[in-house]
């Protein structure tokens, strides 16, 4: 008996792997139809897909799918998601997916001509399942040995004989290939929903805020609540929007004031957030004061970054310290600019100027590798000159060739000979720790067959 169902078509938009704006694209597709499903690519399978199901008599029109496909492709272009690998339509998600995956390459518009590999799409269309995929991959050569190389060969096999040879998944696929006979075998549609945005708002209609301090007081509470919610999701704030609604008045040019703030370093605590907001507002409102009192304030989180974890560890100060550090660094970056603040990370190399590298402040602190065997760390200057300064040695004096500054030397310790990296630069230097009469300690090196010494750093 054939079950009567509402006519429908499913469009499959296939991407290689998972593009960055995959979620946004899926959200945008909700404008076309409420019935969206996604197959993420970040859990395996090598591709991702968005499914759009359309129902109703309109789907019976021959142009219907073509127009929808064109629209979806244009949407992908506009959103700069990247060109889909394929865009196909079918009676259901499995058919659309298998045509997208195999039909485009083989030029077939009918599932029956597709290779047997397409059977997997009838087993798990909406997600990648490692075990089932592996099992099926092992079965493909067996099918081919039997001469079953296409779907049309497969459907000729009696379903009743499949279970005892290939297992229940293949039987299910066989039944789904005849979905008009067995509609109950169709997989459940996993509806896609937009993820709720984290935002907190407070209204002060009865007591609008007149000054920055009172505003900041409110923002502190809003920040706290927003960060707590992010905390619960194991996230930090990376970008936010502050929206202030001013008291209504026809004379006000801008009743809504908003700021989109990209945090220089993602923050997990309200403190870090608040300092940034304070500085930003102080600066901006200094140039463009609010035209009226504030009657509502809202903080919306636009972008997040992975955080410490969903539960705070109350027995360890590490998180607090990390958050305080993030707040400090965030403030420095805000003030000095991203290019002017970095963290110095040790690099395992002998060449002194290459023995460290600047890394972004938010990068986790790298452990300094333990020295092999007994070797403790050697003493190194706190300040290393970007470019060594040539020095002339005259008796007990060292004279800079650039600044002409003179140091009277009271002690030479060394040499420490550092050579190597012949595969790149090849250097040979004899380093000395030079103590001066004035109590300074310099790091100076000489190079064979060169008359001058080079000042490389200061032991502050």
């Amino acid at each position, binding site marked *: 008996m054939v079950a009567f169902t509402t006519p429908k078509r499913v469009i499959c938009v296939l991407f290689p792997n998972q593009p960055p704006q995959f979620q946004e694209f899926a959200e945008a597709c909700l404008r076309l139809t409420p019935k969206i499903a996604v197959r993420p690519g970040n859990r395996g399978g090598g591709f991702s897909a968005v499914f759009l199901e359309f129902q109703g008599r309109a789907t019976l029109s021959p142009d219907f799918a073509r127009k929808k496909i064109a629209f979806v492709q244009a949407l992908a272009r506009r959103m700069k998601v990247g060109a889909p690998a394929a865009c196909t339509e079918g009676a259901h998600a499995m058919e659309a997916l298998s045509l997208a995956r195999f039909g485009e390459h083989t030029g077939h518009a009918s599932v029956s001509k597709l290779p047997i590999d397409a059977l997997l799409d009838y087993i798990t269309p909406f997600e990648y399942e490692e075990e089932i995929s592996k099992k099926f991959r092992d079965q493909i050569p*067996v099918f081919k*040995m*039997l*001469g*079953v190389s296409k779907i049309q060969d497969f459907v*000729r*096999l*009696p379903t009743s*004989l499949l279970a*005892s*040879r*290939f*297992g229940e998944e293949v039987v299910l696929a066989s039944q789904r290939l005849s979905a008009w006979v067995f509609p109950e075998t169709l997989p459940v549609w996993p509806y896609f929903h937009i993820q709720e945005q984290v935002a907190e708002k407070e209204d002060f209609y009865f007591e609008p805020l007149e000054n920055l301090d009172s505003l900041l007081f409110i923002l502190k509470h809003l920040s706290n609540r927003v960060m707590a919610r992010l905390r619960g999701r194991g996230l930090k704030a990376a970008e936010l929007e502050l929206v202030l609604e001013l008291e209504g008045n026809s004379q006000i040019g801008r009743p809504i004031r908003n700021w989109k703030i990209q945090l220089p370093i993602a923050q997990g605590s309200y403190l870090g957030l608040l300092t940034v907001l304070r500085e930003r507002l102080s600066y901006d409102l200094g140039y463009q004061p609010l035209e009226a009192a504030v009657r509502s304030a809202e903080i919306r989180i636009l972008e997040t970054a992975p955080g410490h974890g969903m539960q705070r560890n109350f027995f360890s100060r590490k998180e607090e310290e990390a958050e305080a550090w993030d707040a400090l660094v965030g403030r420095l970056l805000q003030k000095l600019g991203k290019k002017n603040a970095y963290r110095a990370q040790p*690099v*395992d*190399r*002998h060449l002194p100027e290459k023995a460290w590298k600047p890394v972004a402040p938010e990068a986790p602190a790298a452990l300094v*590798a333990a*020295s*092999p*065997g*007994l*070797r*403790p760390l*050697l*003493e190194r200057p706190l300040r290393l000159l970007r470019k060594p300064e040539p020095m002339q040695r005259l008796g007990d004096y060292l004279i800079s060739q650039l600044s002409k500054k003179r140091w009277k030397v009271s002690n030479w310790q*060394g*040499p*420490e*000979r*550092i*050579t*190597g990296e*012949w*595969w*790149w630069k090849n250097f*040979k230097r*004899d*380093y000395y720790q030079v103590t001066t009469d004035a109590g300074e300690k310099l790091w100076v090196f000489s190079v064979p067959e060169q008359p001058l010494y080079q000042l490389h750093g200061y032991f502050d």
Partner: protein
Amino acid sequence: MQYAELLCKTSYSFLRGSSHPQQYIERAAELGISALAIGDRNGVYGLPKAFRASLKNPGLKLISGAELVIFEPDFRVTLLAQNRAGYGSLCRILSLAHEAPIEGPPREAEEIGVRWEQFLQFADSKDSADWIALVSPESLERGTETEQIWGRLKDLFQDRIYSPLFQLLDGMDARRTETALALEKRFGILSIASNDVHYHDESKQALHDVMTAIRHQTTLEEIGKRVFSNSERYLKSPPEMARLFGDLPGTLKNAMSRTLEIAERCTFKLNELRYTYPSEWIPAGETSEAYLSRLVKEGSQKRYPQGVPEAVRKQLDHELRLIHELNFQDYFLTIWEIVEFARSKDILCQGRGSAANSAVCYCLGITAIDPIKMDLLFERFISAERGEPPDIDVDFEHERREEVIQHIYEKYGRDRASLAATHICYRGRLARREVNKVFGLDPETRPETNPLVDQMVEELRNNPRHLSIHPGGFTLSAQPINEIVPIQRGRMDKRTIIQWDKEDLDILGLLKVDILALGMLTALHKALKLVGKYELYTVPHDDPATYAMIQRSDTVGVFQIESRAQISMLPRLLPKNFYDLVVEIAIVRPGPIQGGMVHPYLRRRRGLEPIDLPHPKLESILAKTMGVPIFQEQVMKIAMSLGGFTPGESDELRRAIGAWRSSGDIHRMGKKLIEGLLKSGLSMEFAQRIYQQIQGFAEYGFPESHSASFALLAYASSYLKCHHPAEFTCSLVNSQPLGFYSNHTLLDDARRHGVAILPIHPNISEWDCTIEDGAIRLGWRCVHGLSEAHAQEMIQKRNTQPFQSLSDFMWRAPIRKDVLQRAAMAGIFECFGFDQRHALWRVLEHQLIQSSKDEAQPELFPQLEAYEAIQQDYNCFGASTRGHPMQALREKLKRRIPQISNIEIKSQPGGRWIKIAGMIIVRQHPQTAKGTVFATLEDQTGFLDLILSKETVEKFWEVFTENAFFIVQGVTQRDGDAFSVSVRHLAPIGIEEVRAPSRDFK
């Protein structure tokens, strides 16, 4: 001020030192260092080579030592042997360090060492009384135990423990000095000056860095501080060391002179190792000389039942006299005993190499060639002047060699019998790959892209990489071997190896017995058993049909003359008798080719040029090879009879020939030879031609005796192929892997000789292939993935009750799932009424639900096409009984591929443009060919030789190497009966290919 360097790591610390032992010795002598201690990690691998170099530098004292790794706590101690007893106990503790559990995997390099308790046990006994111990504070990790360890070491070693002090200009020297003073104060442990040497010269630091990166499996970019911070760890001169150590405080000033005191106490020399051959099994009341003479006499009577000829008796007396003089009689008796054991167990064996020059070996039954009849040169084997031990290699059936090896272990004990090592060194391609990786390049990056990389590849070449087991070289000793050299477990099960290789044993005069494996002996034994008429040496000689077959190049499967190069030579050389075979085997080698001997020989054989013998004495030496020297012995004889060389000098010439690439001796000896030849009245042109020809030998020329030994086996296998092709092929398949060709080629060749091949049958086939009414019934051993244990279990069940049905088979036969599926698709179950696909369909059902009955199946699947069926056969057992894949392909593809066969093409004259299709089964790229590649194309009618020029190879490289079936276009070439095609164009046929293994570039 003088000093001795007591801490040196050579390249035999395996990627921890970057200079060879001989480089150290030579450099130390140059610098005026008075003594040098070699202390490689956990071994004495490099000592013999250091010793040999030290003989040329008598002013330098070599001290034997090793660095031992200790675990828990972790540190390292260098132990120096003061005397013979100290050296023996050093070897024993090093053996202990390498001991791995008998069950379980061998230990990785980082796990080699002894535990602290084990070390204490040793050190607490008299075993350590003759050691000097050097422990660097840097090797001991800081911790509370450090004090206890120093204290304990001082208790154990008293005045024989020192702490090496380094001044390496790496910023740590001041700290080192403080620590040294503290050690002296606290424990009374004195310091000695050392430079912690890892290379002989500063310039080797770069190679050391590369080796460190290889060892850590990282790149130079990533190696960081794991390389030394400077290049100071080289062998420094006494004045340099004096500058570094001269200003040290307190008693540290004497750190240099203490090294001399230690050197004075270490008196052991490696040549003190007196080697005694095991001989406890000589019959009571007889000496080994008398016993050997008796055995030789008895053997000669068996070999010459008509009476021992006078020439033979004279030769035997001469050889026995020399053997006794050089004290080698026990060695010969040992070999004889091993061969007798093999014979008692019906294991075929035969001596090879220069031993076949010896009449004593022939009479003892070790070799099979009569050297008198063949006029072979005994001095090639042993000479009094050389004074070195002889080298007797014996081949055994490869499947039964293990029995011989276990016999040796049982008879002598594992402490007195051990396999020699092979020091695997970096060679061309491997060196390139490793250096490429270290530089962050693709391992396959071709050379000439980066001069720095190329330089490092050159430097890395010939440095030891790791130890491997010599295939069958045993060293035996009357006393425990681990008193002479440390023993360690090999990667193979039940194997122990010594740390020295063959060259090291020669340096120290230790004897070695080579127990080798030869697949053809196994095959011959099986074939002879199947035929049931002959033994190996009673196969009828000089059979005309056999030589006719050989001349036709119909030699697939035949020992030594089945390769592509041999097959192409046979119709040119046309062997008609045994000696022709001896020449054939020797001549197709790089030596004679490079020496320019091949073409003159062939031309003279064909009468195209006269045989040139410019001196009457050359008649007896060169007449049998048309006036062209082909064998090493001929060169030696020329040197002796015309060059004025003594037998020993002529052997030295032979060895110089073998080593000429790495030594200058060949030029000195060559000059002497030319002078001698000129004095004998020969022309300069002839003398220089001889010199040029012998240079071509290098290490690739064969001794005549060796070639003759192999010719015996070549003839026997040819005879069996000619007269008993079914038994011969059956035995070859049953003895795989061996030879040049895969099973499918051997079986197709047998089929072309009229032998029927019967498929695998569940109720008939055994593990091995068998003969069934003159046909070959394939055995279960051919099935991919089926183990012998499972097959034998199945056969046992079958023998109790034959399989009644496919279900019955599946229930009772313990066969892996994938093997069963392949077997089904290969039609093995046709006897139960299932074609391939329906058999698979049934198998699948059984595998999932273990159904017990073969119920009637609907016809669901079409029959396999002929080509598909052959494909599935190859997938299952690497061959097909249905026919050749090319035959099926021609039927399937019809006009899309050329239909002309190989046999038809071979009737074409030379110079014709042809187009042909076939399956490539061999690809070869000989070193002497200058980029030319040779290949063999096969179809159902036989083989065709293809020649691809360097340009063609480059043009079609990917196509050539990634496919099996081709359409070939090219030009025919004919030289008498020798035929080949010079390829101009190659295209794949473009069809899913059979799983047919080809022999590629081997």
